[in-house]
């Protein structure tokens, strides 16, 4: 009798592989801890919360290490062990590393920003929101069913709205948050509708099962399934800030505290494109003829509009540095989409996806580096105009050289070798898939982008307008700049470290 009950229980109760889900879980648990601890910690000791959060993020990044030896899955169907909701395969691990590492760097930037804000930002809430958003973003690449995917997307997004609007009484901040919230919610709603269409035509939410059953959709449901595919993509395209869902980006980045903008530019994008990859390549490979051309056109539009937008920024306008980085991140999102579009045409979709992942890793390191330097400059020049960077070399040579390096990496020109080779992999994915026109559009965009990146770089080395003042750089900010700088330079010496993902299968 008891043994019967046991086996019945076994068939209903799942065993959970805690090691596999450790990375997002640690982030979430530390977030909750910080929120509770905030109630009991003195105002003078609030800085401890920051260090706890940074440690938590570092711990969840380290929790990826034991997972390296092989694929693990958990939350599987009791009937079929091959169909799981959570899979920690190479793809998931790489994106989790990117997301958690990005969040860690953003947290380092936030430490200084919170300190400089002198208690105007609620610290406990800030850290809680950042950590829960990071947990959601880390959950997303590992989720393998549409429901988990949407839940993860929302867990990553909802705290982000609050983070953007966290500056109490700041009109710009609240307006940015509202803009971000309204457009994001619309996109999610559309996405949910798409998922319901896909569910209606296939009868399952598991990605691998969708891939199988959507092939045999009844002829009458064909249109429904197609509409479902397109609508589902919209939600993720929004997160990636692909055109025409990019309007929120510049205002949101300017309105948000700088570290949050840095976080959104890297982690937010990672959420978007990893969701896109999962939906397109894993769940809907048979609909490549629908999403392939759509993504290719989206990529071309996104990079062109993003780069032209960045080109039009006037360097003397207030917040033009962040605005320029915002527009350039839209342009970069276009490059990220190119290999995903190429996956539709290529025989080896995994290789193409690897190019996106490699590019994203490069982009994350150098873009966060650029934001870190921007955060440093913003401490003395709160308006953060591009023209404020004039003569930075005279004031602090190392910072200026590093910013120049980061910008040239983004532009893809030596000495930013890793930027150059990351672009080469994206180009080669496009050429390999026969998307010659897209490669040419991208080539033109690289030239446009060079113009504004190099203009900014050249400004760093001009003679300063006034005597440079020396400032002590806070330790967390130094750590963030140094970390990204070392990463960028190490990758330039050994590009294979990230480019190997473009060579091997990730799933």
């Amino acid at each position, binding site marked *: 009798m008891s043994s019967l009950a046991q086996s019945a229980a076994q068939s209903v109760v799942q065993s959970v592989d805690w090691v596999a889900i450790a990375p997002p879980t640690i982030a979430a648990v530390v977030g909750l801890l910080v929120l509770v601890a905030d109630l009991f910690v003195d105002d003078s000791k609030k800085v401890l919360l920051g260090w706890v959060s940074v440690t938590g993020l570092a711990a969840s990044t380290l929790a990826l290490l034991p997972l390296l030896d092989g694929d693990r899955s958990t939350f599987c169907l009791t009937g079929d062990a091959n169909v799981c909701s959570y899979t920690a395969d190479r793809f998931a691990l790489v994106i989790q590393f990117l997301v958690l590492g990005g969040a860690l760097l953003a947290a380092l930037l936030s430490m200084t920003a919170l300190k400089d804000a002198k208690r105007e930002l609620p610290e406990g809430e800030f850290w809680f929101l950042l950590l829960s958003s990071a947990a959601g973003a880390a959950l997303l690449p590992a989720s393998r069913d549409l429901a988990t995917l949407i839940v993860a997307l929302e867990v990553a997004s909802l705290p982000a709205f609050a983070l953007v609007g966290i500056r109490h009484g700041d009109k710009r901040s609240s307006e940015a948050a509202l803009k971000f919230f309204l457009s994001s919610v619309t996109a999610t709603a559309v996405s949910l509708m798409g998922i319901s269409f896909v569910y209606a035509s296939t009868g399952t939410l598991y990605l691998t099962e969708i891939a199988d059953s959507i092939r045999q959709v009844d002829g009458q449901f064909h249109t429904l399934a197609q509409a479902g595919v397109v609508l589902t993509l919209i939600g993720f395209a929004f997160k990636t800030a692909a055109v025409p869902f990019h309007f929120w980006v510049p205002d949101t980045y300017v309105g948000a505290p700088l570290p949050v903008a840095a976080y959104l530019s890297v982690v937010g994008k990672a959420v978007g494109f990893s969701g896109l990859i999962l939906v397109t390549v894993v769940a809907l490979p048979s609909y490549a003829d629908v999403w392939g051309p759509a993504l290719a056109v989206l990529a071309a539009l996104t990079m062109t509009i993003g780069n032209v937008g960045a080109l039009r920024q006037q360097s003397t306008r207030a917040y033009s540095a962040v605005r320029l980085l915002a527009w350039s991140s839209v342009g970069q999102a276009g490059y990220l989409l190119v290999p995903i579009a190429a996956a539709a045409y290529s025989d080896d979709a995994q290789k193409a996806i690897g190019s996106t992942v*490699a590019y994203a890793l490069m982009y994350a390191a150098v873009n966060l580096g650029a934001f870190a330097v921007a955060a440093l400059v913003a401490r003395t020049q709160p308006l953060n105009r591009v023209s404020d960077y004039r003569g930075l070399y005279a004031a602090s*040579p190392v910072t200026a*050289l590093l910013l120049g390096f980061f910008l*040239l990496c983004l532009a893809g*020109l*030596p*000495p930013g*070798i890793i930027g*150059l*080779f990351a672009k*080469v*992999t994206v*180009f*080669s994915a496009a*050429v*390999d898939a026969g998307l*010659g026109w897209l*490669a*040419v559009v991208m*080539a*033109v965009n*690289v*030239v446009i982008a*060079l*113009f504004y990146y*190099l203009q900014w770089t*050249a400004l760093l*080395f001009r*003679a300063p307008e006034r005597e440079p003042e020396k400032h002590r750089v806070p330790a967390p900010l130094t750590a963030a700049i140094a970390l990204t700088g070392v990463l960028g330079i190490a990758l330039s010496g050994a*590009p*294979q470290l990230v*480019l*190997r*993902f*473009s*060579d091997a299968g990730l799933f």
Partner: protein
Amino acid sequence: MIDINESVMQFLLAFVVVGPLLGAVAALLPAPPGLKGKSPEQAVLRHGVTVTGAVLIAVIVLAVGFDHDHPSKMQASTDISWIPALGVRIHLGIDGISLPLLVLTALLTFLCALYSYFKQQHQRLAPGAAGPSPKAFVSLLLLLESGTLATFAVLDLLLFFLAFEMVLIPMYFLIARWGGEQRTRAAWKFILYTLLGSVVMLLGLLLIGIKAGTFDMVALATDNGRSLTTSVQVIAALAVGIGLAVKTPMWPLHSWLPDAHTAAPTVGSVLLAGVLLKMGTYGFVRILLPVTPEGLTTFAPYLAAFAVVGIIYGSLACLALARRGAKGDLKRLIAYSSVGHMGFVLLGIATMTPTGVNGALFANIAHGLITGLLFFLVGALKDRTGTTDLDTLAQETGAALYGKAPRLGGLLAFGAVASLGLPGLAGFWGEMLALFGAFRPADDLNRPAFLTFMAIAAFGTLLTAAYLLVVVRRVCMGAVPQESPKLTDVQTYEFAAWTPLVALTVLAGLWPAALLGLTDPAVQQLLAGGTR
């Protein structure tokens, strides 16, 4: 000549590429104690001379140790895997085609560093000679040297692209920071043109690499285009050709060059004309000729036609600039003359015959020596008179350089005469051979068309002679006014920087076999496909 251990040769070649890079980083650091010199400026410029000098010595040792009996064989080659994901290998090596270019690059860069060092020493005595920091200058110069040397030493398509791009940023800053009037615009024009060309080139290189399955230039050359279909070859040759043609520059893609030269500082002009332009023509010979022979055959007549138009266009532009009252700038004039000279190089390549290609390579080196010298001389003239405007210089009667500064005038006349291709000097042989090549182009090319090109190009040499003689008359000759101040004649340090160029110009003119003996076997092999 002298037998040097292969691993020493390998090390030297690697040093030649990496050394300047390390030197560029070191230039930015504060000088170590004991090497501080009289001032930080002096110390860092001396550092530049030391590093470029060491590189020059290494290159000379390489040239001495080079097996001159087998110039078609890749020597001192290193082949290490770097980025397996992309199939990029650090594959270095030199043969008879790249060795002369390496020597030229190392020599010109060293002379530029030397010239800058002594010029600073000289100007330090004169008050008000404050420019942007020489620290950055030396660092950029070394970065530039590393990029150009790497271009000629690498044997991997993607590495070639990397080296090709590496020169853009330093050159941009050299023009934009140390240049003359309109420097910002000129620097932008330079970098945007070249970058647009080189990203298109990247697409072509990727197409070749993906379709042929390797980026290795030696393997691709051995394959001689057999694993590429004709349509792939045509597309790749077009894409790569555009990138290289912008750099060369080929008419009508040349319009960045006159602006860049006019605005660039003396050292920038010397390196731009002497070395950077060669990267384009080297790419034609090293990549397009052996890897996509069918593609190049398709475009050879057009290439030759554009080259010939470039020759005529460059000469006519120079004639117009040299006219009295045209407000012609001497630097601009030499830049246009470069368009014409590079036209001969392209014509030689377009014939796809050993004669023509050898001529092209010879003209390449000759142009580097002679134009480098001319830019040095014009720079010196500008330092003395404060202008390069022909009308201001010559006024009514002529600048009378022979009278005011006889040595400078003599050297300028020598440079002009060498540039117009006087037999016995370096300029002659390359253009001669290029024309010979056009007389009997490769079998599958249209001979009547090439004969026409040859006739027009020969007419171009006459025009070249015409404008250079006009320049000599207006700048060097003329009556010396009684009360006019004497110009400083050539200084010792200037002699030191210019004599090697003069000597090599004469040597190459009198003993062309020294150079042709190196290039010819390598060219024969590239055209036939494969390396031994």
